[in-house]
């Protein structure tokens, strides 16, 4: 499988009142053709900022350095004009909040057709046909009528289907889905995930799925990167992630999933919270919350070690990797 996206040493900083703060700090990963990469981590770990960096959608005070190689281009160096040709066309994005991510004043069909009209050389009528076809593809009943309806006339699940239709409309090579099911209720979540799975199988597009829900990961992903405080702490295929998680943070995440059939009065939790981006510890960023902390952890940052089945950023495995 060929690599379609290769992110190398991505550092995204924001200028804030505390000075320059690196929210994403040296992230590396690749996405291959037709694969679903899960990006897991708790709120504030830099998942969304990573995706916005790829799309070039950071707020004005944000800046990315490093390399984001998409085909033969480094997305961090292409002009804004060139980036506009890539966005929505070759890389599309599905956002977390279907309620607010659609323009309330335009009919949804027009919003889908807009990208088609922009990127593909088609007439207005053809763009409309494509939009209706996309609405059908995402399982919308009465697609012709829905084309003319406004977002407020649709339910949350239907709006997310519209978002997916919009993302798929130009047959992108990569879809970045930022917590696409978080805002939806459970039954709808399953439908949307099934839909995304279908889309992937039909079109062979790659998906970067950002989530904090490990259930979603197990269902959808081929490979997973676990992020913590702006860094990748573990990278592996999905089976290994669940069978032998290595990083204490990943282990902690696994233990905090409720299991059916086990009698537990309290769920295991990871004590403490993610350090603030302007107050990072000097050593391992997870050390203050880690149950297996050693003296070296507080002095030196561990590198991302290559293990047999995975990569892991933890001093515990230094000997194993050597």
């Amino acid at each position: 499988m060929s690599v379609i996206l290769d992110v190398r040493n991505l550092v995204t900083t924001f200028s804030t009142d505390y000075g320059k703060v690196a929210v994403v700090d040296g992230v590396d990963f690749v996405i291959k053709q037709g694969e679903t990469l899960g990006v897991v981590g708790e709120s504030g770990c830099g998942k969304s900022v990573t995706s916005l960096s790829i799309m070039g959608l950071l707020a004005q005070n944000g800046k990315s350095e490093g390399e984001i190689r998409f085909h033969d281009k480094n997305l961090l160096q292409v002009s804004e004009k060139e980036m506009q040709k890539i966005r929505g066309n070759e890389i599309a994005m599905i956002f977390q909040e279907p309620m607010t991510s659609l323009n309330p004043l335009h009919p949804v069909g027009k919003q889908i057709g807009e990208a088609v009209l922009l990127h593909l050389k088609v007439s207005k009528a053809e763009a409309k046909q494509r939009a209706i076809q996309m609405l059908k593809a995402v399982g919308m009943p009465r697609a012709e009528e829905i084309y003319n309806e406004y977002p407020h006339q649709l339910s949350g699940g239907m709006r997310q289907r519209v978002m997916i239709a919009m993302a798929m409309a130009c047959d992108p090579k990569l879809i970045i889905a930022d917590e696409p099911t978080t805002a939806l209720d459970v039954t709808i979540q399953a439908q949307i995930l099934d839909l995304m799975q279908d889309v992937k199988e039909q079109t062979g597009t790659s998906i970067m799925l950002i989530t904090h829900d490990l259930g979603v990961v197990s269902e959808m992903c081929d490979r997973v990167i676990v992020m913590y405080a702006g860094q990748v702490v573990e990278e592996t295929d999905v089976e290994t992630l669940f069978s032998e998680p290595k990083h204490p943070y990943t282990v902690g995440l696994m233990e905090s999933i409720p299991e059916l059939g086990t009698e537990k009065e309290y769920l295991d939790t990871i004590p403490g919270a993610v350090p603030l981006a302007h107050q990072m510890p000097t050593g391992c960023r997870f050390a203050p919350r880690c149950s297996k902390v050693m003296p070296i952890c507080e002095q030196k940052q561990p590198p991302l070690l290559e293990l047999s089945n995975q990569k892991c950023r933890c001093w515990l495995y230094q000997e194993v990797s050597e």
Partner: protein
Amino acid sequence: MMFVVKRLLLTIPILILVSIMTFSLIHMIPGDPARVILGQEATPEAYEALRAELGLDKPIVTQYFTWLGNVVQGDLGMSITDRVPVADLILQRLPATIELTIGTFIFALIIAIPTGILAAVRRNTWIDYTASFTALGGMSIPNFWLALMAIIYFSVENQWLPSSGYVPFSEDPKANLMAMLLPCMVTGLRESAMLMRMLRSSLVEVVHMDFVRTAKAKGLNEVRMVLGHALRNALIPVVTTSGLMIAGLLGGLVITESIFSIPGFGRLIVESVFKRDYVTVQGAILVSAVLVVVVNLLVDLLYAVIDPRIKAGKGAEG
């Protein structure tokens, strides 16, 4: 449609209230039209005779209902001082003011919309600061001063535009437009300040909304993102302000009308108040109230055109 009917019905009590208030106010002001007409040296007999002729000797409640009865039939009464139907006076004066209001509004929009958009999109840059500073100046400078400066520059020193000489549009369109250009520019500049600031703050909020990011993620450039997606979402407060502005202008252009010698509606009201021509004042204020009500109705209808979520009768009470 139901919504329009409902709104129109709602205007009836408003207009009745306005009529009662204007009727009582003008009678509370000290001074007597009969005295004004006859002067201080008139004999008591002549004074009483005129009062009887004008109906001023009857109880005030009777006077009100007589007047209201006529108004309902389209008769606003005779001007006490000018001895012509009030309706004719108003019809003579209203077109100039309506023209001035429309011209002012167009100028205000021409200035406010581009600068408001630029200031919002280039927030916290020199463009934004310059626009906000100029707007603050526009709101602080008294209108009469600006008008006088404009006359000195455009009419006295350069003779580009006339400073007065209003002729109705129907008589000489070119002369009419030439005479109206300067007053419209002056008041338009002033009114644009408020609209521009309204649009800027509303747009600044909207450009940070999720759907604008979606538009950008689709590959739209900044111009299409702002004009195609953000602007319309930012318009509601601007439409509200515009409605209030137009309503205010229709009766409140006295200063501009006086400086540029335009025989307008605002001046009619003020002149009539000074002459104690209460019949004209009542009629003019009633017409002005009707205009305000109509403008507000149009604003409410425009809300629904801009935003499909605002359905008739719901959320459009403002």
